[in-house]
């Protein structure tokens, strides 16, 4: 019997638990490096995100319900066409008065005479609708909406005439943030404007969208609009009208 060899017990043959700490540390470092390389490959094959398309929105006039004094429609003044920002396209958005208001007392000039202003209205948005006038039963044919700005002036409601609907002289467009663009939206909001003879406008949303935040954004933008009051026989009068605002986010 040869007793020169001493064999340790099997438990001492291998000691995986002794080297476990540093093996784990090295393995985790190696794993992180592998994952970084893996995600680098994934990102390399990922298609580049397409550029966000501009928001398409339109403002469309409502058909006249009551043949009253044609109100001046409001149109967006200058739709800033920034490619990356949502924007409201400014198609011809004339708006017609739904209801005629009783003519308020004529504004009195400092010398005590009624104001019969025939001066040309304030700056008018470009690209507005026709200004041929949209005469209602009252015969006071204010030009349809923003069309007042570009009216030919040949009709009774054209630019330069004594009868003119209220029209916007400053109409900023609502800017819809990107997070609202995540969901496709196709809805319509209807805003109700009341423009007094002295140009003070109040607005409210008669028909709201499903998104309260979108309603607030639209309302905030519409509150910034400024109007030239409607004119009847050369006299500024109160007027009110509705704006239909279709919102389409694709």
């Amino acid at each position, binding site marked *: *019997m*040869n*007793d*020169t*060899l*001493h*064999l*340790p017990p*099997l438990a*001492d*043959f*291998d000691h*995986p638990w002794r*080297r*476990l700490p540093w*093996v*784990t540390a*090295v*393995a*985790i470092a*190696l*794993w*992180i490096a*592998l*994952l*970084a390389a*893996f*995600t*680098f490959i*994934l*990102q390399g094959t*990922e298609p580049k995100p*397409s550029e966000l398309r501009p928001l398409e929105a339109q403002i469309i006039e409502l058909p006249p319900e009551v043949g009253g004094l044609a109100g001046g429609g409001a149109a967006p003044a200058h739709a800033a066409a920034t490619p990356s920002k949502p924007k409201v396209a400014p198609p011809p958005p004339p708006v017609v008065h739904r209801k005629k208001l009783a003519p308020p007392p004529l504004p009195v000039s400092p010398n005590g005479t009624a104001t019969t202003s025939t001066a040309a209205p304030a700056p008018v948005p470009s690209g507005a609708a026709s200004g041929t006038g949209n005469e209602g039963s009252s015969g006071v044919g204010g030009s349809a909406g923003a069309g007042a700005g570009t009216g030919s002036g040949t009709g009774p409601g054209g630019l330069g005439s004594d009868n003119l609907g209220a029209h916007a002289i400053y109409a900023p467009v609502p800017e819809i943030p990107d997070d609202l663009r*995540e*969901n*496709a*939206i*196709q809805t319509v909001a209807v805003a109700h404007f009341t423009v007094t003879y002295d140009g003070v406008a109040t607005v409210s949303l008669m028909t709201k969208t499903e998104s309260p935040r979108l309603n607030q954004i639209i309302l905030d933008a519409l509150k910034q609009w400024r109007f030239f009051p409607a004119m009847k026989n050369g006299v500024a009068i109160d007027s009110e009208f509705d704006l239909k605002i279709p919102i389409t986010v*694709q």
Partner: protein
Amino acid sequence: MNELRLAWEALSYGGAMVYPLLLLGALALVIMLDRAVAYWRCLRLPEEVGGLIETYGFAWKDLDREIEQLGPRNAYGRFLGVISSNRDHPAWWVESRAGDEAGRIEKTMSRGLWILETVVTAAPLMGLLGTITGMMQAFQVIGGSGLVAPTRVTSGVAQALISTALGLLIALIALFGFNFFSRAQSQALDHMERLGSKLADHIRLDQESGGVRSVHPVHEAGKDRMAL
């Protein structure tokens, strides 16, 4: 660090199944590294030892000296030591003890390989599960509202596929590791079996010749044939 942050953000798109997958991957790497260290330490056989046994005649004292130099943690040293230290016993008894020792060595060296094998199978399945749940969430976009941006659906599906890709990556790594270590272990055991048979033949020859077998010097030619 920015690359690591971007990598983490990309992986986190894969959903909740990414986290167990990452754990599986780390576990597989730990086992593979541990087995690499164990095999490197325990399954090395110097050419001198192999060449000595491959010769037709050798002195047992020379073999004992070589075995001692291998150290107690070398699997070949343990296996050959069992045979050499019991060479005075009957050959059948020595072969039985050698087979028993080989079995214990196999068990020790294959420690953790079953986990690698499990990871090979489980990782793709977990990745697939993560993809299915991710796609279910992506398609819920369609059911949620009438109008849906198509890019939202496709981007959700693409993100859901990350978990499958990660599962396949982990399975591939574990598969290569498992096959490599399984083959290395199988080759080592085959080699031990062949060396054990030669030593058992020497024991039989010594016992048949009454222990007076002449001892020949080690043949140098046998060195080149030994390799793990």
